[in-house]
């Protein structure tokens, strides 16, 4: 991973609106060909970050680079290689899907001939070829979103930035979009940056994610190691179901590790500890003829991140 080429880089990127700091000293590196998820609750500063990457708003401090080009100075060059799908993407509703795409193509200075072949390919790809001549006003949310992806692909970008691409879609629509995104990265070898507040939907397709809360990047890395970095000092909780439950059991568990806290809730045993005691616990249980029916570890996984940051009310910071 490390020897890969960095295509998007930010250093100390900061955006302040008067008193309010929307993005605070963001250092981020995104590698070529990966799907990076910028995940965080609403108002975390994701869109602001994206706008700064595209040169649509100027950073207060720090800088961002795409392919080594400064985003505030070389905006036009960057926009030629970066496709951007805004949240709440809108089209000219009186025009058909083809007309909308043609307009985008012409703005990008593509030849008329190439435009037509590209429109056909893209409509096919996002599964809209049958309705390509219908006015966009008649499209459903999911269709518009797919058309939005086709629209960002018109310029054949190396890097694609998608802002909340699954917002307001039904489960089928979300699946379609996510599959499309995976295809863009894996088959076409494009770099994809997705922002979303829907952690559960998006995490499964991301190579790496950054958790972004209150303008700050909390953690950044592959999804499976992320929980550990965020909750380094936090206690692990084991959820157990053991038969039979008796007084000796508690003593047995305490004998493994002195510092554990044990409580019971409806047939279930909750064991909190600083270290991972799963291995010892399972061994001790089987040695003492206890039957382990159920074991679940929680406290350091993404669910916990989700619970802690994403379900929190807006404005409540860590």
């Amino acid at each position, binding site marked *: 991973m490390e020897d890969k080429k960095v295509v998007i880089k930010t250093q100390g990127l900061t955006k302040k609106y008067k008193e309010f700091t929307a993005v605070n000293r963001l250092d981020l590196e995104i590698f070529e060909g990966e799907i990076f998820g910028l995940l965080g609750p609403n108002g975390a500063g994701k869109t602001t970050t994206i706008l700064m990457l595209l040169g649509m708003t100027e950073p207060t401090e720090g800088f961002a680079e795409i392919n080594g080009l400064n985003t505030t100075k070389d905006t036009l060059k960057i*926009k030629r290689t970066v496709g951007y799908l805004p949240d709440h993407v809108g089209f000219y509703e009186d025009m058909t899907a083809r007309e909308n795409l043609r*307009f985008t193509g012409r703005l990008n200075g593509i030849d008329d001939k190439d435009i037509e072949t590209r429109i056909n390919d893209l409509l096919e790809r996002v599964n809209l070829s049958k309705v390509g001549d219908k006015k966009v006003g008649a499209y459903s949310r999911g269709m518009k979103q797919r058309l939005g992806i086709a629209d960002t692909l018109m310029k054949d970008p190396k890097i694609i930035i998608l802002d909340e691409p699954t917002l307001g879609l039904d489960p089928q629509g979300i699946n379609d979009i996510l599959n499309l995104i995976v295809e863009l990265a894996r088959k076409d070898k494009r770099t994809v940056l997705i922002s979303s507040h829907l952690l559960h939907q998006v995490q499964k397709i991301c190579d790496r994610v950054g958790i972004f809360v209150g303008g700050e990047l909390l953690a950044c890395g592959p999804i499976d190691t992320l929980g550990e970095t965020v909750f380094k000092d936090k206690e692990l909780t084991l959820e157990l179901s053991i038969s039979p439950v008796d007084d000796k059991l508690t003593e047995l568990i305490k004998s493994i590790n002195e510092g554990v806290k044990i409580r019971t809730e409806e047939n279930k045993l909750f064991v909190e500890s600083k270290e991972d005691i799963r291995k010892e616990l399972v061994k001790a249980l089987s040695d003492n003829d206890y039957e382990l029916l159920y074991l679940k570890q929680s406290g350091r996984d993404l669910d916990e991140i989700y619970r802690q940051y994403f379900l929190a009310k807006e404005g409540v910071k860590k």
Partner: protein
Amino acid sequence: MKSNCLQVLYKKELADHLKSKRFIIILALVAITGITAIYAAAYGIRSAVEEENNSFVFLRLFTASGNSIPSFISFISFLGPLVGLALGFDSINGEINRGSLSRLLAQPIPRDTVINGKFLAGVSIISLMVFAMGLAVGGLGIIMIGIPPTADEILRILVFLVLSVLYISLWLAISQLFSLLLRQTATSALACIAVWLFLSVFVGLLSGAISEVLYPAAKATTVEALLSKSKLELMLNRISPSTVYNEAVVTMLNPGVRTLGFITQDQLVGAIAGTLPFFQSLLLIWPHFITLIAVTMICFAVSYVFFMKQEIRM
């Protein structure tokens, strides 16, 4: 690359305008009122020609009013702003609300092409409308009164049409500015109409009231006082683009108008009654010309600066 983008945007805006129902409604409105006015003027023109000297008959088509129907130029001066406002009141905030502006700005185009393209397309539509109207009405006039225009008259009509384009473009620039300053299209439409009503109706009333306060009728007994009162009133009236436009158009289409504003008997002594040649009329309204251009430019420049600095956030 840049001019190409501008061209693409310009064409798209033009097509948008031409296809929109709004444009068709406005066009119908202007066409109906225009033709009515010309018809009424042509109807009464025969008697008018017999009474007075028969020079510049053709121009009277535009300036003469029928029994109860106002003249063509007063229709344009009243409805023209509406055309300009209707074309521009949602040009930027409409795009923002539809979510298409951020998509547009994500394309490799300089930001100013968006607002330039929109304004140019609007001005083109206005020119198209005004010149089509002018020519159609002129043709209709020839058929109805049977007198072709002289070269001098044609020049005057052309200047009149150019003035009308400028006047309506000014309102386009104003409405575009509102579409940038206000987020809701309904609000900007209302703001535009408020400005229009204020400038075309209330400025006239206010200027009368203000000059009355400063030079009360009871005290204004000297010639000088009366003169400065009417001068003040005229100047206040000229705040409104409608007044400027009306003055310019009346001067242009009525060669008998030799001066603007009030003059005393002393100043008239020795003057021979007659009409002004074309270039003298043009000279007389040159300040009006420049004013209309300047105000349009200022409005556009302000919107340009606003647009370039605006944060594009939904």
